[in-house]
């Protein structure tokens, strides 16, 4: 399946860029399929008007536009707080969190739904925020790694267990691992190790800290 196939059928389909350098170019630069997906979605939006880092939302954006876009000023519920934010139709939740709400705990490892570093919980269910359009979470509860620590600094049992078991190595995948563990224990407070392994399996860890992460999950389940 190419990225373009995930567009809803009633959305504008990607407009493929003219190939200037031939077959080798198009083969070599396979990332363009995702880029074209983004550009295709941009084409459904309104004229960009707010400054920001997120793709295509600068005041001088030259992204092509067509009429009939969705509302841009939305209020998200993130970590229990109402967060008004200006969101482009094509904007992913990961980019909104990281570049507009300052929540950089959510990491981007692949930006294409392969690694799980960007995992956040939406209404208690894990989602890859790199592959979730921000507009789709309106009216839903978004929980990121920043939302777990208590106001007094008390850590969530999963976070504390990850310290006690030395769960992380490099730490880049850790926020995503934490969120998957939190979602698991919310729905299944006493998982078997095998259930935990299955629940965590959408989160890649290149350091190979799986055993320590699972030890952390099982320790947190005892709290």
């Amino acid at each position: 399946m190419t990225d373009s196939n995930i567009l809803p059928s009633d959305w504008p389909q990607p407009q493929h860029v003219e190939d200037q350098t031939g077959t080798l170019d198009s083969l070599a630069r396979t990332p363009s399929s995702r880029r074209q997906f983004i550009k295709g979605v941009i084409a459904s939006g309104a004229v960009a008007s707010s400054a920001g880092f997120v793709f295509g939302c600068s005041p001088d954006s030259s992204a092509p536009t067509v009429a009939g876009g969705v509302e841009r000023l939305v209020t998200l519920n993130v970590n229990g707080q109402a967060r008004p934010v200006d969101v482009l139709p094509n904007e992913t939740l990961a980019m909104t969190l990281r570049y507009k709400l300052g929540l950089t705990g959510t990491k981007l490892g692949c930006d294409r739904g392969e690694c799980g570093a960007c995992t956040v919980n939406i209404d208690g269910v894990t989602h890859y925020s790199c592959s979730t359009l921000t507009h789709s979470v309106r009216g839903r509860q978004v929980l990121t790694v920043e939302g777990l620590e208590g106001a007094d600094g008390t850590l969530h049992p999963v976070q504390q267990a990850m310290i006690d078991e030395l769960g992380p190595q490099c730490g880049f995948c850790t926020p995503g691992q934490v969120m998957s563990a939190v979602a698991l224990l919310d729905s299944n407070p006493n998982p078997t190790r095998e259930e935990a392994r299955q629940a965590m399996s959408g989160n890649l860890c290149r350091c190979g800290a799986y055993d320590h992460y699972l030890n952390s999950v099982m320790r947190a389940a005892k709290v």
Partner: protein
Amino acid sequence: MAYNLIGKDFVPPDIHGKVTGKAKYAEDFRVEGMVFGKLLTSPVPHGRVTNIDASEALAMDGVIGILTANDDGVGALLTNEPKFVGDPILALAAVDETIAQDAIDRIVLDIEPLDYTVDPLDSLYPGGPDARSDGSNVGGGRTGLERRRVKWTARDFSAAEEGQLPMGEPAWQWSYGDIETGFQEADLVFDESFVTQGNSHHSMEPRTAMAYWQGGKCYVHTGSQSLTASLAGIADQLGITIDELVYVNENCGGGFGSKGTAAQTAGISGHLSKQIGRPVMLRISRHEEFYIGSARGTLQGRIKIGFRRDGRIVAIDFSVVQDGGANGGFQDSGDAAQAVSIMYQPESMRFRGIPVLTNTTPRGPQRGPGQNQVAAAMEPILDKAARDLGLDRLAIRKLNAPDNNATVGGQQIPVTSAYMPDALDKGAGMFNWAEQQVRSGERNGSKVFGVGIGQAYHDVGRTGYDGLLVLTPDGKLHLHSGVGNLGTYSYASTTRPAAEILKCDWENCIVHQGTNARHLPIASTQTGSNTSWTMTRTNYVAAVDAVAKLKEIAAIDLGGSPEDYEIGDHKVFATEDPERHLTYAQAAQRAIELGGKFSGQEMPDEIHNVTKAAVAGIAGTGLVGVAKDTLRMEGDVPALACGFAAVEVDLETGKVEILDYVGVADCGTVLHPQGLSQQVKGGAVWGVGLALMERQIYDPQNGLPGNVSFDHCKPPTYLDVPSSMNWDAVDIADPQNPVGARGIGEPPMGAAAAAVLCAISDALEGHLFNRTPVVPDMIINHVVGQRQSYRALQIHTA
């Protein structure tokens, strides 16, 4: 020896940030006015850029500027002769990333295609293609060899079709003993050619970099495994001095050898920022990370090995052709040979190797470069010998394994210490080898049970770096660590010997790391598993210096000579009268008042300039302990590991399930048990990748990569490895490290890969694939007696 801190678990200072999301990596920083950079990379495996028309791109609203290889100082950061698909040609800055990418798409690039190759043997064949336009095909990169052209004769390839590795003129060679006599006297001789395919590092954090210029300095944010060891390289990329560089590297999201020093993205973002006068965030995509994120060298090798009847190895003739990628690669071949020599202690051995340039991604050191591939190749051959000789597979390993009498390499250098037989015994006990191996070949429906043992090695000792610490008047011990933070926690665990020597409570210690702005001493690159050995020594000598200064200050203030004083309980006190003392806090205050060497206004001549700058930065803040490591280091410092695996091989699907895994480390004194556990088990996960899953696929017809994403390259997930693994360590001190420590990060991978491959071979009645990874279709083809889908010695195959 009983320690208070060494060998004990502790909470590393950075882990709170990792579990709360507060830990900052390069892409988490924001600077006023920051814009985005984007790369234009090569669509062809080799070509010459004849024209770049960026006029349309530069005319776009929001586009700020471009950087090419033609700009001053850019050097090799960008290129007009791309040598692999994905080689960066140009960087463009725009106010946001979409505009930057749209602008990149509007740049018209004219490239003249050039000859290319993706297989070293093709390039070595008479008249074969060369990876470089100057006709060179061997050397370069980090091989230590000048680039040159080498072609072998057709006669050298006479047996290649049958799968025997050709070997003409080598680039590297050494030997010791008499292998001809050894083979003549051997009771059993095997001659096996093998292939270990290369694979990408796939660090979770792409090598994103952000840079800006302020107050005459360049501020660079990017992840590197190393910190102060990366300064010179970044400064060189930018054409500035180290004094003009502020490098921020608080966290590094994985490196595994690929981020030993800072990547070219640091230089590209810095130059682009300088050119446009604004901060530049150069986000690197997952695909770009595949291209420029480094990869393990592919090995095409041959092992001729002779055994005596009792299983002792008498002769080894080892040959390797190494894919050096577009840059020339690393020294995998020689490292592999060194590993063979130490792990099996052959009575005679010859090594010949050659690194060949290809038009595939640049190759660099990856976790046990050479050593881990050859573990995967060698250990199943050892099993074959054990079967033919009627020996136990554990026994044949113990017979040949390195101990304190072991020697390494062509010069037969002695080891500082080695306890591989002990490690094997420990692992065999934990794994219950005696009972498990009886089950070999046991059927469970379509699945067959097998067990295997693997061993691996890495050399882990360096010396000559500096230690730095400060006792401040508040009684705190500030430990300045120039080590990078790549996830091993050794930036902190290697400082604990200083606290141990000074008899400080860990609660009174503060570890400084993350940026040279925090005044950090020169450290070794955080590579090659050397930090545990190398940086415990630097912290030790700095602490010894501090202890001497404490005693000198006590003698000045309280009378007598320094020899009359001892330390303890955060005090320096008279041995004869402990009531006569200064607290560390008081001594620190006195150091400030005394000045000179006591508080860093004077410093040793022999320390590195980076350390001198760090000392100058903290001078006058307390009692400074600073010294260069000149401790004795004679011989090879080995990191050793073994692994035991039980697998089930499904003969219908080709799937391999690892049922049980035990890893044991021989790395001297254990510094940090939890951290060591992580390395043994994490290394095992990497070993599973090497054995069963990971490789780069290249289309030989067009030179195009076939698997650039996580999804296609498939590093191991939770479901590919056992849900729990067991580990232990020999934990016997090395005599040449002040706390007995050696490193460990690399060999647990090779040990696990080899154990899994041996277990598969065991399940398949001793069949040798002589190839990694062993993927399901290979198993099925073998089971049904069908030809494999690859040609003999072919690499980069799916």
